[in-house]
């Protein structure tokens, strides 16, 4: 037991922790600040700008000064409030923003320069003659700024997210919240009572006030026990409701702090919200009011009453209102005394007088503390009449600021109340009620009453020793010595506010941005109102005309890991695997992401590079046979008597006469006339089609079709549904593809006559039902074979086995690309959302009938002659053409006339080839242009050729 520890917390386990490397004892679960105070430690860190010594200013989440870094085994946790951090065995915490130590900090030299470092300092200097000047100084400024230091190692903590639905969400478990919960419990509806602290009860804990004849603490225990008997009530301590979003959706963090789960992100969906968020005590602005040993009276009260720690032994109080007397009284009964109170008011209320008499305290009426003495710890205060009083702790109360952050986040404008010297919640836009201190009901009886009232109940609680509300609207003591701080955390001084006014930054938003007031981690919880009052004085206007800024979520800072809810890394996006995935992996496939899908890029053989592999694979297709997993293509069933008419409107080309059992290639446009997607669609039955889309556009095409059917043509009798996941597909391509399939399939005549190009047949592979379509993306004799997904691997293996005698080669997306580039078929890089049918050489598909996108495809700009057109490029020197090259001409080597879209080495042509979009390119066939790649300072001559490099008349696929 130290002389600062009044008694050990009941049943608490004694533990060891270190602060700045030094070992201390404390009790498990108490805030670090309490444990440090019990050990006589007041100097916690250094301030942001001036490196002034800072201590513990409060006892809760509004703390502006006592920020530490926690050293976890897996990394650092900077900017942690010592006032809310619950200590545990082995905790290691260190001070921030100081070097070499918090005691001796070289950065404190900044403090000497504080007259120079005024608001707006950086805007006025470091400009020099060029931007390099600023970049030079900025390096040092950045190093000096920042607060705690973060880790570069990955965070290994576990986070999760839940959604919680309830009828009543009560935020804050002080007297108003508990009173509301008691009434809500009886409705039988789902009630959640959440509070940011580890214990529920807030100001009820440790006070000597009584409720209905019971000491508040006893009353609290009784009510919490009652609430726990209700199955419809959930009590959530350590849970901060940080943000209020639309339709009563609220974000919350529950601090679980176990190995299995660090924090839980809870999204509340509440029918009704009751905000009982209390109030935060305000500082008074006077000289050196930031020194360690200056503390809010409520903080002092909490450490004494709740944690049985005495933050000082020679305590002076300074106030402009009555509430501090309650803290003095409670502390007196808990064993900590205050010897003098400096009260700016001229007379005492009966309530205050009674406590003064009872505690035997000295009173200095009508006086103020003008500044404090001492640097790393205060040693005395000087009053405005010159009196100097020694002390080791000064407790301050400048009044109370209702905690209306959640209301304000919604944009509800607060209303200033002159008698309370406080902003109260404005008109709510959402379904919530504000009760208790956050609504200006500062007395205990009023809080209890307003909580019940929120549930429509008139209930009266009898309270003894309730403090009356009386405040003198004084915010600042004229400074005679030292610096008066308004915003401690950002080192904003009272004089900065005057300067901002002088320079025209009088709008509160300008004030905030120019001085950085209220923009620190605490969002100005203790400073905003004082700043407004000071600006009001400067402008000689009432506070209400100065305006307020909107609080932004979160109420208190929330870990990014928590907000992610653990949905990162492998959980960030779903991963889609085809049925044949394992096979690909087992056969040396190098996999690649294409959207959410994972596909084989190449199947590498020992010693092969990606290029070696795709050249081998593509050549095998042309020479014999290859197979590729095409499961990822989007597949949509289009069903109904009007399906042909629907397709005829959606695709640019004609669809009405497609016979059953045949497939057709189609292109669709967006409404703006540019190409949207392409693919083949198969007529399976009279009224049933299977549409395939590109892998990338599968979802967009489905939505597009649904839009047309739902909104535009509800009269068409057509239904569409995605069947992408239902089918596994393999494209078998090459001269031996027919023979390969014929070996495995029964019930299908594979002959050219019976199974012509673009035909679709049903058959079986053993017992596996398959659909076979004779389609070709590669330009070879080729088939797509489809089966229900769960047979996919079996189908693949059967085909693979059947093809062994032909040396069948599985191929990946690279060879797939090679084969289609050789044929001049367009794909993703060409279908880039900026190309028209004609740009892509697809104007043959421009139907005579009306189709989606037809009118706007005829806009002037889409018909312009200088549009970029799809052409082929042939490498002249046999050098690879880099993808991403720009095309320029010999005459003008800095102006791009187009770009390379897709490139490959063509085993068929034994040369490097590419597809490109070049202005007016079709008229330039035969020209030599330059493919330039300034990123690597490379360029090469290429010849513009027709994009159908290989087998332009398509004879190979018609055999």
């Amino acid at each position, binding site marked *: 037991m130290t002389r600062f520890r009044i008694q050990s917390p009941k049943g608490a386990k004694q533990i060891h922790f270190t602060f700045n490397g030094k070992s201390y004892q404390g009790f498990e679960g108490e805030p670090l600040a309490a444990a440090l105070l019990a050990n006589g430690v007041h100097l916690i860190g250094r301030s942001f700008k001036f490196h002034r010594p800072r201590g513990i200013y409060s006892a809760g989440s509004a703390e502006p000064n006592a920020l530490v870094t926690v050293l976890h085994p897996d990394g650092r946790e900077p900017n942690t409030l010592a006032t809310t951090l619950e200590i545990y065995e082995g905790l290691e915490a260190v001070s921030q923003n100081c070097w070499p130590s918090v005691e001796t900090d070289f950065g404190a030299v900044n403090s000497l320069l504080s007259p120079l470092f005024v608001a707006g300092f950086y805007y006025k200097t470091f400009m020099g003659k060029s931007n390099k000047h600023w970049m030079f100084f900025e390096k040092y400024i950045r190093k000096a700024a920042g607060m705690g230091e973060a880790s570069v190692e990955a965070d290994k903590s576990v986070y999760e997210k839940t959604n919680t639905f309830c009828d009543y969400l009560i935020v804050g478990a002080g007297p108003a919240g508990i009173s509301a919960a008691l009434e809500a419990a009886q409705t039988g509806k789902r009630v959640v009572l959440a509070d940011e602290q580890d214990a529920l009860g807030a100001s009820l804990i440790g006070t000597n006030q009584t409720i209905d004849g019971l000491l508040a603490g006893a009353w609290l225990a009784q009510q919490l026990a009652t609430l726990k008997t209700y199955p419809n009530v959930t009590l959530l301590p350590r849970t901060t409701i940080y943000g209020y979003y639309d339709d009563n959706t609220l974000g919350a963090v529950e601090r679980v702090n176990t190995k299995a789960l660090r924090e839980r992100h809870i999204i509340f969906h509440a029918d009704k919200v009751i905000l009982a968020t209390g109030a935060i005590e305000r500082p008074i602005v006077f000289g050196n009011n930031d020194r360690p040993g200056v503390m809010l009276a409520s903080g002092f009260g909490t450490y004494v009453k709740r944690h049985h720690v005495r933050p000082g032994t020679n305590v002076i109080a300074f106030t402009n209102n009555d509430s501090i007397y309650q803290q003095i009284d409670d502390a007196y009964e808990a064993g900590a005394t205050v010897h003098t109170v400096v009260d700016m008011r001229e007379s005492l209320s009966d309530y205050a007088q009674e406590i003064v008499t009872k505690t035997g305290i000295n009173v200095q009426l009508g006086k103020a503390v003008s500044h404090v003495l001492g640097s790393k710890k205060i040693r005395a205060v000087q009053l405005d009449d010159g009196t100097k009083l020694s002390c080791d702790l000064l407790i301050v109360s400048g009044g109370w600021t209702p905690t209306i952050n959640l209301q304000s986040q919604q944009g509800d404008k607060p209303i200033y109340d002159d008698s309370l010297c406080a902003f109260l919640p404005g008109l709510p836009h959402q379904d919530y009620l504000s009760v208790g201190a956050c609504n200006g009901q500062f007395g205990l009886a009023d809080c209890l009453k307003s909580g019940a009232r929120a549930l429509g109940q008139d209930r009266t609680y009898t309270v003894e020793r309730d403090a009356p509300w009386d405040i003198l609207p004084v915010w600042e003591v004229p400074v005679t010595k030292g610096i008066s701080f308004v915003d401690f955390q950002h080192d904003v001084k009272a004089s900065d506010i005057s300067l901002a006014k002088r320079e025209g930054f009088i709008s509160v938003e300008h004030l905030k941005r120019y001085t950085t007031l209220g923009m620190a981690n605490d969002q100005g919880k203790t400073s905003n109102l004082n700043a407004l009052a000071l600006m009001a004085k400067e402008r000689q206007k009432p506070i209400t005309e100065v305006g307020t800024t909107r609080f932004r979520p979160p109420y208190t800072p929330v870990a990014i890991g928590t907000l992610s809810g653990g949905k990162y890394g492998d959980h960030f996006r779903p991963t889609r695997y085809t049925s044949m995935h394992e096979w690909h992996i087992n056969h040396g496939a190098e996999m690649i992401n294409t959207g959410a899908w994972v596909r084989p890029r190449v199947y590498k053989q020992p010693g092969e590079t990606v290029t070696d592999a795709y050249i081998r694979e593509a050549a095998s297709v042309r020479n014999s046979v290859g197979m590729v997993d095409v499961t990822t293509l989007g597949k949509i069933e289009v069903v109904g008597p009007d399906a042909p008419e629907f397709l005829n409107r959606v695709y640019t080309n004609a669809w009405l006469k497609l016979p059953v059992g045949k497939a057709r290639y189609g292109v669709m446009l967006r409404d703006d006339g540019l190409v949207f997607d392409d693919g083949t669609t198969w007529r399976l039955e009279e009224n049933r089609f299977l549409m395939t889309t590109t892998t990338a556009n599968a979802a967009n095409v489905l939505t597009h079709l649904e839009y047309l059917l739902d909104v*535009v043509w509800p009269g068409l009798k057509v239904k569409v549904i995605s069947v992408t996941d239902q089918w596994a597909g393999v494209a078998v391509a090459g001269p031996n593809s027919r023979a390969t399939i014929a070996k495995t399939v029964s019930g299908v005549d594979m002959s050219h006559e019976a199974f012509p190009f673009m035909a679709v047949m049903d058959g079986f592979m053993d017992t596996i039902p398959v659909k076979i379509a004779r389609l070709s993306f590669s330009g070879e004799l080729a088939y797509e074979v489809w089966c229900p997904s769960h047979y996919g691997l079996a189908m693949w293996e059967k085909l693979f086995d059947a093809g062994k005698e032909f040396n069948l080669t599985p191929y990946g997306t690279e060879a797939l690309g090679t084969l289609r580039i050789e044929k001049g078929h367009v794909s993703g890089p060409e279908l880039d959302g900026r190309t028209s049918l004609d740009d892509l050489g697809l104007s043959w598909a421009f139907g005579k009938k009306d189709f989606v996108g037809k009118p706007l495809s005829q806009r002037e700009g889409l018909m312009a002659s200088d549009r970029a057109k799809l052409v082929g490029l042939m490498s002249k020197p046999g050098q690879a053409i880099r993808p991403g090259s720009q095309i320029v001409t010999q005459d003008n080597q800095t102006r791009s006339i187009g770009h390379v879209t897709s490139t490959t080495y063509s085993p068929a042509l034994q040369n490097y080839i590419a597809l490109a979009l070049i202005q007016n390119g079709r008229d330039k066939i035969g020209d030599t242009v330059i493919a330039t790649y300034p990123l690597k300072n490379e360029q090469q001559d290429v010849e513009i050729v027709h994009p159908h490099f290989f087998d332009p008349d398509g004879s190979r696929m018609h055999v």
Partner: protein
Amino acid sequence: MKIECPFCGKRDHSEFTYKGDATVARPDHSEQDLDRWNDYVFQRTNPKGAHKEYWHHTNGCRKFLIVERDTISHKINSVTLVQGGGK
């Protein structure tokens, strides 16, 4: 925001996809007048306040809904099924 889908009930807006102004009139499929198509595709009133708009229940029933929503308060006043806007 929460949208009361006529099929699926009240669901979080993250299940839906916003699909734009529902007051724009799509010209008839056979309409050839470019001005009318340009107006439909590109021009918006973009009201500050009451707005009638399409939402697609992408991760639900996949129906297109007409939602009357305030673009300042995000309050939703009605949700109805599309009855068919064009021909």
